[in-house]
């Protein structure tokens, strides 16, 4: 069974603080993704990665950085958190080189910025 683990599951951060969301996958997938989920918007892609050392901007990258130090790990970094970044964040992995492969999701991180 494919496994994507996110930590922490819940986080409260202060405005202007730094937040790091972590993701680990044991699927040996090349691609990893960070999405955020907001009511009325569905899931929107923030950053993604093709493999260790690579990060690419998704559709809404502003205010976020990403880091992929290894095949298994992909982090999302908020250098200066703002209340507008309050959301549920999902990490996912996939081997979607051909477009026909499903993507596996973690259980999400609920981030509240106060």
């Amino acid at each position, binding site marked *: 069974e494919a496994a994507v683990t996110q930590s922490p599951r819940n986080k409260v951060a202060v405005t202007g603080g730094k937040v790091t969301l972590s993701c680990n996958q044991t699927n040996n997938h090349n691609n990893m993704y960070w999405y955020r989920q907001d009511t009325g918007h569905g*899931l929107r892609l923030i950053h*993604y990665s*093709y493999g260790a050392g690579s990060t690419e901007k998704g559709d809404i990258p502003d205010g976020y950085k990403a880091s992929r130090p290894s095949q298994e790990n992909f982090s999302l970094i908020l250098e200066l958190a703002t209340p507008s970044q309050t959301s549920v964040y*999902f990490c996912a992995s996939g081997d979607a*080189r051909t*477009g*026909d492969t499903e993507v596996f999701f973690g*259980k999400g991180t609920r981030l509240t910025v106060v």
Partner: protein
Amino acid sequence: AQSVTQPDARVTVSEGASLQLRCKYSYFGTPYLFWYVQYPRQGLQLLLKYYPGDPVVQGVNGFEAEFSKSNSSFHLRKASVHWSDWAVYFCAVPAYQGGRALIFGTGTTVSVSP
């Protein structure tokens, strides 16, 4: 550009009744298509996926979906809804850009009444 539209934000159905969730996509050519389900406080799980071929696809838990190229649609159906089907359902299509991230619709929340 590719996109997915789920016109119904919320659907309420009686237990035992049939269910149809609508999905319209925009994509150059014939895409692979996916339906995901999100149970409360969980990540997204694959319900079914379509490969070009037979337009009717069977998924888990009695769900099926029908692809229509002429209508650019991929509607999800279930003949008899169970209370455990209370969830949010997302339709998705691969993005054109490299990495093949999925583009999601805004989701349809299904509520089941006794």
